[in-house]
Structure formats: structure tokens, C-alpha cells
């Protein structure tokens, strides 16, 4: 997994609440047996004017000029600014894979759906919860300033705006540690093999029917 370091990136605003994982990556692309290559189909139904299918070349498909992702001022954006309950719906990890593959490194929103939030951390994507009024202020700032960038420092847990404002954010210490160091969860867990085995033996003695 890519280590998450300090970076600054262009911010793209997606001004709607309850953006679900079906919108982030529509179901037809879930037929892939790979982890990569979802970026060109991120927000497919909002981004293109025609219907997308896996295996089809996306180059030359008609773009929806009204969708933010297609606007020149947001090209190369690495930070997605969103509204409440971002990532609701299915557990598909294809959603963070698509966001990451497109080039996003962080998402700022007032709230996220639990499973999506969790899936982000497994893929080097940082979901940041900020209060609604701060998110509102950022939406206004992005709208009025072309090329608006924010600097995110995970170590310090800060977002720095060009006007000098600094927003603090919370992140669980264990997740932060894993993200900063690009650690593999499975490798970490397997350091506790003896504890898992001990628990399993105790559990088996108490509820043998679970191991039939």
C-alpha cells in the first residue's frame, strides 16, 4: 500500500448528499476480477452521456460537460470535497479502488458510510470528517477560487488552506499508524497468531457446534 505523506492537491467539489457506491462505480464494472483500472469509470453515469460497459474503450465517449469531473479547472484533482453520508450503499471496495485509481488521495465530507470509510483506509485513501460549517466554507472557497488547493498533513492531522486557515481533523491512531507507514493489515494481524489460536481453542471448547 502507498504510504500517505504530506501532500497538497487540487480540490474537486461534489455538491450532493448521500453519494452512494452505485454512483461511484456502477455495478457492471464489478464483473472485473482485478483491483485496478476502475478510474476511467469513476462516476460513470454522471460523467458520460452514454452507457458504459466493462471492456469498452472509454476514450472518445461523450462527456457530460455539467459534471465537475469534466471541468477543466478540476483536472488533476487529488482531494474530493463531498457532502453527508458519502459512500453509502454497498460494501464494494471497487468504490475506493476507482477513486484511488482516478488519482484521489483524500475525501473531505461531514460524514461517511461506515463500510466505505473503512475500505478507504485499506487502500491508502484518507477519508476526513469535518464539521458541516467547515465543509460549507470549503465549498464556497473552491467555487470562488480556480485551482483551489489544500495541503493535508496526516502526521499533524491538519488541513491547511491558502488563506492561512488550518483545520484540525480526527483519525484513529491505529489507522493513522497503518496509513503513515503503508502497513499491511494481514501481516500485522499475523503477528498475533498465538493469541488467535488461544482464542479459537477457548471458543471451540465453549461452542463446539461452531467448528463442526
Amino acid at each position, binding site marked *: 500500500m502507498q504510504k500517505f505523506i504530506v501532500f497538497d492537491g487540487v480540490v474537486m467539489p461534489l455538491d450532493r448528499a448521500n453519494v452512494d457506491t452505485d454512483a461511484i462505480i456502477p455495478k457492471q464494472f*464489478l464483473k472485473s476480477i482485478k483491483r485496478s483500472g476502475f478510474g476511467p469509470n469513476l462516476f460513470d453515469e454522471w460523467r458520460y452521456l452514454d452507457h458504459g460497459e466493462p471492456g469498452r474503450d472509454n476514450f472518445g465517449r461523450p462527456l457530460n460537460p455539467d459534471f465537475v469531473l469534466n471541468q477543466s479547472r478540476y483536472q488533476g484533482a487529488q482531494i474530493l470535497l463531498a457532502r453527508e453520508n458519502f459512500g453509502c450503499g454497498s460494501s464494494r471496495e471497487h468504490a475506493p479502488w476507482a477513486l484511488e485509481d482516478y488519482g484521489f488521495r483524500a475525501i473531505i465530507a461531514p460524514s461517511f458510510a461506515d463500510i466505505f470509510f473503512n475500505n478507504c483506509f485499506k487502500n491508502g485513501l484518507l477519508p476526513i470528517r469535518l464539521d458541516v460549517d467547515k465543509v460549507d466554507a470549503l465549498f464556497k472557497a473552491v467555487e470562488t477560487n480556480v485551482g483551489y488547493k489544500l495541503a493535508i498533513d496526516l502526521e499533524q492531522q491538519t488541513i491547511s488552506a491558502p488563506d492561512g486557515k488550518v483545520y484540525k481533523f480526527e483519525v484513529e491512531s491505529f489507522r493513522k499508524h497503518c496509513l503513515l507507514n503503508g502497513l499491511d493489515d494481514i501481516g500485522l494481524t499475523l503477528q498475533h497468531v498465538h493469541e488467535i489460536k488461544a482464542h479459537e481453542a477457548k471458543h471451540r471448547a465453549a461452542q463446539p457446534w461452531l467448528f463442526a
Partner: protein
Amino acid sequence: MKAQTLYDKLWNAHVVRQEADGTALIYIDRHLVHEVTSPQAFEGLKLAGRRLWRTASILAVADHNVPTTGRAQGISDPIARLQVETLDSNCAEFGVNEFKMNDVRQGIVHVIGPEQGATLPGMTVVCGDSHTSTHGAFAALAFGIGTSEVEHVMATQCLLMKKSKAMQVVVEGALHKGVTAKDIALAVIGKIGTAGGTGYAIEFAGSAIRGLSMEGRMTVCNMAIEAGARAGMIAADDTTINYLKGRPFAPQGEVWDKAVAYWNTLHSDDGARFDQVIKLDAASIRPQVTWGTSPEMVVAVDGRVPDPSTMSDAVKRDAAARALQYMGLVANTPITEINIDKVFIGSCTNARIEDMRAAAAIAKGRHIAANVKLAMVVPGSGLVKRQAEQEGLDKIFIAAGFEWREPGCSMCLAMNDDRLSSGERCASTSNRNFEGRQGQGGRTHLVSPEMAAAAAIAGHFVDVSKL
């Protein structure tokens, strides 16, 4: 000892270890696997040279991509076929128990787990699918996970997670005729919103919940994720235990008795503390119909499409206006004046035998309306299908103009060929009415099986309690 919630009991029984910040390693008893969210996990295991920690904990089935007609010819879409074949070959390589597409036990993963007795009270149950919350109906701690976590459970039999907050949703009283578990679920979501349960595990309680069959309880827990809660659960009681007795994966003999004794402890203690308690009066719930593109956009069938201009919250107003535009609806239209094009009865929410019976009871002796282009019934598993056919339900549906299909997820998410065309309006017993969910540009209204069948007959929504 301090009074514990059901969630406390399930959590405590599975904690392997805990970090200083509260992140815990949780032991997983049952891992359900399907074709869409597992290939990358198996690939990850292979690349790292890792093996499965406990192969017998896994039960696999293909459900999302399988066709609901012409199974003998296999899967025509080559990309979908490769995904199902990849599941088959991974299961063969790793020795995983899999119900293949033409096995009578094949079906939707959340239907077959309980049907086989592979979901038991007291278990932790995970699957790379958000509707894993369904299994909480058995007093299990069950929740959906992403593919990285699927791989993590495969390799370690554990998950890293923090304990959620506890919410209790209490539904007291008797349900009116024509009001179902689905209506309870939609009414709860309408009340607390699709993010109301975010960060919580929800326990459903109260006399109306206790009065539900296991099928109904599964419908309620299934929709917990639509309220934002990863897990929904219901205490074990005689209904739970009677359902499980004699099922293939359930314990037998002396072990059964020992298990039952333990299962009878799986309820919240008197005086247990919840972080939030929501109360609903069962008698106040009417048959529900969603009007928008989020399950929280729901009203009773005798209501009207809401008017965004009357909403004070700007974010909600914008979302409602956008939803009406997508849905092709005009504010203040009575719900019963909305005509439909298609009907879908199925999904992990409502494709169990009781759902089939309820829909058939409405369809019996009637016929779908002329404006309904397609009404399809997709049983949740091969065994549900067989049972329904033994009861003659298939004949009732076919005589009424419905199509009787093979089991799978089908038009709930439209990964296979079952989908809406742009602009088509569907009465659906599934769980999500998101934009494009049932096909790009498709318009979904979530309802109960009874309400879906009644809409098929009338050609528009009707109050099933008045039929």
C-alpha cells in the same frame, strides 16, 4: 454483573485482543463468499503465499452475476462468466465448500446461509456484501466487509475493528393487515434517515418484532444497512430455535441441546444501556412506498409525493428536487396515481418462501395490468423455488402473467441481464432505489412483496390493505 446488550454479549465473546485506542481483533465464525467481492481476495492470498486459516468456516455461492433464465446454456456474458468461473476455480483450489450454479441449494448468499443453518445464534458472520446484516436476525453479529477484509478474514479468521455504539429500535403493538416486516424497515429508515444508524449496531426489539417470523426478521435486519448501520440484530427466542432445528449445518443431538441453552442467553439484559433508543408504534405503520432515490425518501401508500419547496433544510431540498427530476415525478401527486412499467419480486430482502406466499396470495385469480411490461418473481434460492413449486405458487404467478425465474440477485442490482431501461418505473421488493441501481435511468420504488404484487395487478400503486 453489569447488564449487557445483545451486542455486548456477541462482541465480548469474540474479542481476541485490543489495542490501546480500542481497535480490537475480532474472531469470525462464518465467512460467506460470493463471486463479485472475492476474486481479488483470493488473488491477494496467492500472491502473498498465504493459506486459508479455517476453510470450513467458508461457504461460497455465485449469486450476483447468474442468469435467471436458460441456466442450461451457461452464462452468455463472457465477463460475468469469467467471474463465476474464477469463484469455482478458487473454491476448488482452496478446498472451499461451494454451491455451484446448477446445485438446488444455490441462491442468494443471504438466503442460503440461514436456510442451510450455516448462520447460527452467537456467531460472527461476515461477507463481502453490505446486506450481511440480514443474518443478525438470528442473534448473530453479522456485517458486510470490503474485499481487503475478505482477504484478511481468509488469512487470519479475524477482523480489525472498533466497537460501534448501540442503538435499540423498539416496535411495539400489532401490525395492521397488509403491513409487513418490509414496511417496518422502511418506516424506521423514514424516521431516522439513511445515515441515522451510521456508527451504530441496531438491535430491533418490541412485541411487533418478536411477532415476526424468521423470514420477516431477516427482512428487517437486511435493511439495517439502509439506515446506515453495519449490523442489525434480534434476540434469539423459540422462533429462532424452531427455524434452525434440523437444518443441514445446525448441530444435532446433545450438542443441539447445549447450543440451545447458550442461545437462550442471547438477548439484551433488563436494564442494559443503549446509546440511543428509537420507538415506533406498530399500529401507526401503513404500507410504505419510496418516491425518491434514497430509501429514506419514503411515504405511506395513502400519502403524496412531497414538495421540495416546503423543505427547510437546503441539502434535503436539493436532494428531493433532484430525486423528483430523476424519478419523473411531480410534487403532491398521490402515490396511488403513479403508474408502473415493471415489477420485481425478489432479492435478499424479500425472496424467501414467506415472501413468495404473500405475493402469490395477492396474485391468485387475478392478472397483471396491461401497462405492466414485465412482472418477474425471482426466488431467493433453489430450495425456495422448489418449495414454492410444491405449493403450486409458480402456477399462480404464471397464470397471473408473472414470470417465474431461477434464483439469484437479479434485478435488485441488475448485474445480470435483468434490468430496467432508461425511464422505466418499477415496483421492487429490493432494498435500494439509488439512481441507476436497477439499470441506468431506471426508476425504483421500494415496497413489500404484497404491495409489489398488488401494483402489478392494478398497474399502479394501491393500498394492499384495502384489497
